C-alpha cells in the first residue's frame, strides 16, 4: 500500500470540510451582504432623490440605455421586474433568494450524484458502452435481449424474487412474534428490546463474515444437518441467508410493531375479554385490524431491504454457490 504523507492527508480533510460546510456558508454570507448592499444603496438613492429634487441633476446621472423602451413607464416595469423579484429588498425577493439558496446544496448534490447518473445509466443501457470504449453508439434494446436470454441472470433473478418473498414473510413473522412477547409486563422488558435490536447495528459486510464463520465452522462442528455447511448448497444457502437477514432485521421491524401495539386502546381488549374472547380471537379481531397501518410500513421496509441486499451476500458466500444467490453483478 502506498503511504501518503501527513500534509496531503490534512489537505484532503481540510478541503473536504471546506467544500461541505464552509463554502456554502461563505456563499450565504456573500449573498446576504450583497442583498444588504443593494438595500442600503436603494435607500440612499431614495434619500438623495428626495434631497435634491431638481430635474437637471437627475438627467445627468441617467444610465446609458441598452434596450429602447417606449416610455418611462414601460422601462420601469420591465427593468424593475428582475430587480424586484430576485435582488430587491422586498419580501418576495428575499423569499426567492432564500428558496434557491436553501435548496441548492442538497438538491444540487442530489441531481449531480443520483439523478444525472440514473439518466445516464438508462441511456448507456441502450448503447454498446464498455469501460474501455469512449464513444458508445446506440444499439436499442439489444442489451436487454442478451441479458434475458442469459441463463445466469434469469436464474439469479428468479432466485432473488423467491428469496424476497420468503424473507419478507420470515422477518415479519419473527418480528411480530417478538413484539407480542416484549409488550408483556416482563421484568427485563427493556433489556429484551435492546438485545433483539442489537444485531441491527452491525453492518451487512461484517455480519456476513460473522455468519460465514458460524455456518462454516461453529455449526459444522456439530455435525448432523449442519454438515456439510448450510451455505455450500444452493437451496440451503437461501435458507441460511434468510436466517441471517431475519436475525439482523427483525429487531428493527419489532420496534415498529411495538410502537403500534402500544397504541391499541386497552379498554377494547378488556371489553372483548369480558365478552369471552380467547387470546387468538382477541389478536385476530381487535389487535390486527388496529395495527394494519404498521404492517404496510413494515412490508415496504422489508421489501426494499430484501431486494437491495448486496454486502451480506458478498461476504457470506461471494455470490456463490454458482450464481444461486441474489447477486446480479
Amino acid at each position, binding site marked *: 500500500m502506498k503511504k501518503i504523507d501527513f500534509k496531503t492527508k490534512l489537505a484532503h480533510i481540510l478541503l473536504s470540510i471546506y*467544500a461541505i460546510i464552509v463554502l456554502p456558508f461563505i456563499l450565504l454570507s456573500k449573498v446576504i451582504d450583497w442583498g444588504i448592499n443593494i438595500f442600503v444603496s436603494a435607500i440612499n438613492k431614495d434619500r438623495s432623490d428626495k434631497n435634491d429634487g431638481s430635474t437637471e441633476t437627475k438627467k445627468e446621472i441617467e444610465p446609458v440605455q441598452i434596450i429602447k423602451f417606449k416610455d418611462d413607464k414601460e422601462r420601469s416595469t420591465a427593468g424593475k421586474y428582475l430587480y424586484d423579484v430576485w435582488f430587491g429588498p422586498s419580501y418576495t425577493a428575499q423569499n426567492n433568494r432564500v428558496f434557491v439558496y436553501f435548496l441548492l446544496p442538497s438538491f444540487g448534490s*442530489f441531481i449531480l*450524484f*443520483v439523478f444525472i447518473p440514473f439518466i445516464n445509466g438508462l441511456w448507456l443501457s441502450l448503447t454498446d458502452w464498455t469501460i474501455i470504449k469512449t464513444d458508445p453508439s446506440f444499439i436499442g434494446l439489444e442489451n436487454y435481449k442478451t441479458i434475458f436470454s442469459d441463463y445466469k441472470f434469469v436464474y439469479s433473478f428468479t432466485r432473488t424474487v423467491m428469496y424476497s418473498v420468503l424473507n419478507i414473510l420470515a422477518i415479519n413473522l419473527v418480528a411480530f412474534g417478538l413484539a407480542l412477547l416484549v409488550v408483556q409486563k*416482563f421484568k427485563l422488558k427493556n433489556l429484551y428490546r435492546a*438485545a433483539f435490536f442489537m444485531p*441491527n447495528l452491525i453492518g*451487512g459486510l461484517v455480519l456476513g463474515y460473522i455468519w460465514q464463520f458460524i455456518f462454516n465452522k461453529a455449526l459444522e462442528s456439530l455435525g448432523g444437518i449442519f454438515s456439510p455447511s448450510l451455505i455450500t448448497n444452493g437451496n440451503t444457502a437461501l435458507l441460511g441467508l434468510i436466517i441471517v437477514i431475519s436475525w439482523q432485521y427483525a429487531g428493527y421491524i419489532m*420496534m415498529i410493531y411495538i410502537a403500534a401495539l402500544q397504541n391499541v386502546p386497552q379498554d377494547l381488549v378488556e371489553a372483548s375479554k369480558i365478552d369471552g374472547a380467547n387470546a387468538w380471537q382477541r389478536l385476530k379481531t381487535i389487535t390486527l385490524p388496529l395495527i394494519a397501518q404498521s404492517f404496510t410500513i413494515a412490508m415496504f421496509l422489508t421489501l426494499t431491504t430484501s431486494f437491495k441486499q448486496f454486502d451480506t451476500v458478498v461476504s457470506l458466500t461471494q455470490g456463490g454457490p454458482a450464481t444461486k444467490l441474489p447477486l446480479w453483478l
Partner: protein
Amino acid sequence: MKKQNIKLIIGEVFTFILMIVFFFPFMMIIFNAAKDDTEIIRNPLSLPTNLLNMYHNAIEILGRDNIDYFQSFGYSTIITVVSLIAIGTFSAMAAWVLVRTKTKYSVFIFMLFLSGMVIPFQVVMLPLVRLLQTMKDVTGIPFKGTVHGVILAYIGFGAPLSVFMFYGFIKSIPMDIEEAAIIDGCSKSQVFFKIILPILKPIFVTMLVLNGMWIWNDYLLPLLILGKGTDVQTLPLSVANLVGFYDKEWSLILTSVLMAAIPVIVLFLFAQKHIIKGMTSGAIK
C-alpha cells in the same frame, strides 16, 4: 391472579431463552476472538481457555499494514460525522423552503426528491464512477479516492429520504410562529436557524440514527469511490481487505470484526433511549 403470574413467568423464561439464542452469534465472535487458530479449528463452540489471546490478536491486527485500524477508524468517523451534519442541515433547509413555497416548481422538485427514494444504488453506481472521472477531467479536482467525494455522494444519496421526513414534520409546524418571528424582525434565514431548526430536534435525531447506521456500515459506495486497498479506507473496507488477504485466519478476522462493531455498540448502549425512540418515530410518521 395466580394463574396469570405463572403464565407471565413462563413467558419471561421463554423470552430470556430466545434472547440467549439471539445473542449466540455475538457470543461466538467474543469467544473465538479469544482463541488462536488451532484452538478454533479443534473446538469452535467451547469457551476460550486463555483470554489473553484476544489481546494478542488485537495487537497483531494493529500491527498489520493492510488494515490500518486507527486510520480507517478516523476516516470512517470523519466521513460519517461530516456527512450526517451536512445531510441534516441541507435537507432540513431544502424541506423547509419546499414546504413554505407553494409554487409548481417546489412541487416538481419535491417529486424529483421522492423519485430518488426508489432508485436503487446498483443502477446508479457505474455511471456515477464514470461521472466522477469526467468531473476530475473537467475541474482538475479528484473526486475518486478522496474524502470529500464520498461525503458529497452521501449528501446526494441521503437527501431524498431526509427531505421526505423533514417535509412531513415541517408541514405540522404552524405558520404563525414564523410570522411572529418575522414581525419581530427576523430575516428569512434567521427564521430557519433560530426558530425552525430547534423545533426539528426529534426528527433530526431520527435522521441521524437512520443515516448514521447506513453510512457507518456502508460498503458498496466507499468501495466504488474509494476503491480497495487505497490510502483512504473506511472500516468495512479494511475488514474486507483483511479477509481477502488472510483467508480463513479466523481468529484475526473475528477480532477485526469485533473491533469494527464495538464503537457502534458502545454508542448504542449510551444513547439507547434516543436511538430507539428516533427509529420508531421516524418509521411511524
